[in-house]
């Protein structure tokens, strides 16, 4: 099951998104601010991140940059900011997609599906390296040593 991390400080939006994603067989975790989001990304890398830019503790773009420092996970940015300058900034900082609020649920789900497909392609792009002593799994960022 694809694991989606939803980061937004608006509880009602989080609730709606979670209900919808779960109804479509996505696994969903949510975070209400940037720090907890980064924590989750570290502990349990998601397949797709849905990130709202207006977070209470840090700017969404900073969160995005920090995610990008260690991961190529597809990130969909959600924001009420509709200026193209904001879109350019987010996309250049590493977002894969930008959805402006308010948005229709159909469109949102389609974009999540697209992002998940990208994840799979990336994952397959790098084959794992297998040696007698250890296996390097790039898709999951794991190095396993036979013991």
């Amino acid at each position, binding site marked *: 099951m694809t694991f989606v991390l939803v980061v937004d400080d*608006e509880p*009602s*939006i989080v*609730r*709606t*998104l979670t*209900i*919808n994603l779960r*109804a*479509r067989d996505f696994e969903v975790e949510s975070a209400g601010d940037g720090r907890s989001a980064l924590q989750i990304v570290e502990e349990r890398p998601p397949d797709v991140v849905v990130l709202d830019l*207006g*977070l*209470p*503790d*840090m*700017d969404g773009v900073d969160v995005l940059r920090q995610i990008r420092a260690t991961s190529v996970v597809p990130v969909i940015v959600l924001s*009420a*900011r*509709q*200026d193209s300058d904001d879109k350019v900034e987010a996309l250049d900082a590493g977002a894969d997609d930008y959805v402006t*609020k*308010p*948005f*229709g*649920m*159909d469109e*949102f789900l389609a974009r999540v599906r697209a992002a998940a497909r990208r994840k799979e392609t990336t994952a397959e792009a790098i084959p794992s390296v297998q040696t007698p002593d250890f296996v390097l799994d790039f898709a999951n960022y794991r190095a396993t040593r036979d013991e």
Partner: protein
Amino acid sequence: MARGLLRIYLGAAPGVGKTVAMLGEAHRRVERGTDVVVGICETHGRAYTAAQIEGLETVPLKEIEYRGTSFPELDLDAVLARAPQVALIDELAHTNVPGSRNAKRWEDMNELLDAGIDVISTVNIQHLESLNDVVESITGVKQRETVPDDVVRAADQIELVDMTPEALRRRMAHGHIYPAGNVDAALSNYFRPGNLSALRELALLWLADRVDEALERYRQDQGISAPWPTRERIVVALNGRPEGETLLRRAAQIASRGAGGELLATHIAQSDGLVGSDPTSIAAQRKLAAELGGTFHSVSGDDVAQAILDFARGVNATQIVLGVSRRGRLQSLLAPGVGEAVVAGSGDIDVHLVTHDYARKGLNKAPRNAVGMKRAAVGWVTATAGPALLTLLLVATRQHHDLPLDMLAFLALTVGCALVGGLLPALFCALASSLALNYYFTPPIHTFTIEDPQNAAALIVFLLVAASVASAVHLSARREAQAVAAQRESRILLQLAQSLLGAEDQLPTLLDQARDTFSMRAAAIVRRDSVHAPWTILASSGPFDLNDVRGASVRAPLDDMTELVLSGPVIGADERRLVSAFATHASAILSREALAREAHAATSLAKDNRTRTALLAAVSHDLRTPLAGIKAAVSSLRQSDITWSPTDEADMLESIEESADRLNAMVGNLLDMSRLQTGTVSTHVQELHLQDVVAASVAALGDQGIRVRAWFPEDLPLFRADAGLLDRVLANLLENALKHSPGRQEVVIGGSGTRSRIQIRVVDRGMGVPDALKDQIFAPFQRFGDAPRGEGVGLGLAVARGLTEAMDGTLTAEDTPGGGLTMVIDLPLASALP
């Protein structure tokens, strides 16, 4: 109070129908609903005119006693008390009977205009000050009652009432103008066709000039305004004698031809103090110049023609008006008069020589010597006494010297005389010396014959040398004086430029320097908004007050409405040029300051625009967020491929409702804020119980309501507030408190009362707010603390305070003991007196 509007009906002659026109206009306005009152209307016994007054409200005239007879005059106070929209004042040129408040009726009219009352008035062309002489020459009658030109010029509308001379004569013949019995010979003389035509032409031309002026002004406003130097500037040179009045009027006429002419009257005062003018006639001419719309300048100078030319050049004059010389023809042959000298030196300035009654009748004093009487006197004394004394001396010591030394001694004397007294005394001295030499020192002595031809030649050479040395010395002395003056001038200009480059307060520095340079008592830059407005001082140096402006010795205009005024001694014509330099500098400083102010205004405007753009972005975000929640939930529910479980469905519907409520609250706050800022909040004050109010607010919170605890005595008295507004205030404060109370912490609503006020407290135990920011949190569009930059607008507290104040209360923030923020609403008790 805005000044009233003035409309004047201008007529060319009595009987053309000005009063009837005025009354007709009054009737029209009454029909339109305007409040019109007749101040005073002269019917001159004409039945038709009297009939026109019917139907208009008249202010009764005031009877004023004078010399045993009672005269009806305009009752100015009654009209002012009545305060109509429009007042009719007939015959503007009328002189009021002594005992009235103002001397002239046009001064009465000005009082009405100042009080904001519109005035419709009438005046005949022959009453205009500047046309007085012309009218007299046309009609043969000296017009005693006059109106200053600028009173009529300042009218907002001038309407010409015109009638052909034939029609006018017919009217008079039928007795419509004056009763038939009064039409005597003198009057018929006045109404000759030639007269009437000339007067009519005068009226038409005068009005045409006004129209042209207005058009020119309009063109200037719409397009590029013409630079200063292209206006006609007319300098009238007055010598203080009675013909000055004629010159002033003529010059005013020339100035008013073609739009925007400027009149400068200048009186050349000669520094030796010998006066051919008397102070009262100068004062009268000064007053006349002001009435004609010009300015009066006093300038000192010994060479009158040169002083006039220097002044004219200094002010960039385009024309000079002089009187034809008084001197007889013989005198003019001997030495050029002032007029001829001015014409000779005028260059590209036109010179008008105006003839007047006193031309070529009286003897004028000869033009002054460039050197000055005092010096000339000393020179003549030296020239006569010197040779005599020297002769005595040399005769007494005859044994010790010869002819060469004698000659050189006399030569030295002549040179000294030239230095002291100028050319003429020196020449006389040379002649006297040569005669003395001949008689006393050339052999044979004591005779005028000369033996030795060499001595004769030497004597002749002596004479020539003495004469040429005298003139050379004289010339060089004059040149030196000019050089010194030029050097002084350039030094002053250099000082001016240097001091202005560095100075902080440039205008006061400039004025200080002007005071020093010209030895003035006080200097100032003054401005007025229009010809009638009073002067205001922009900057001043020394003891200057506004009364000095009228009688100031130097007034240099910077532009239409601003002038540099120097009050103190009269200055020479050549120094006038320097004054222009100061004036130009001052105007440069003023325009630089104006530009700086504009630049500053532009930057703050840009800053405001930036703030506004940021605000709009923030507001749009805050409005879009709940909308996004609604849309997301609604579009989820509408998806056809999924059946939602009842819990999910309930959750989403709840989201929709929550978001809608949030949106509603946001919009409400925005509207309240805008209402507060435009001052359109209306309050409906009632007497309320705190319990009811709190119960309603807590209920409105819904689920969150359990976090709110009310804690106040039950017997709190009734207080006065608007229930709806208070509800909003509490809602905002509670929302704020709940947001800042961590977790599920409680928020307390407390209440307490004093003798006349009640305090309602909303207490949270959150982070609190530092003292420095306690006022700032109430500023609109600020969210203190955890807002990400640029996100969201904090309106809640600003609206709460605004609404509280609209209810005659106050909202302040205090620290909660133990940590947190307490908001205190202070409202009046119902029992307290309002």
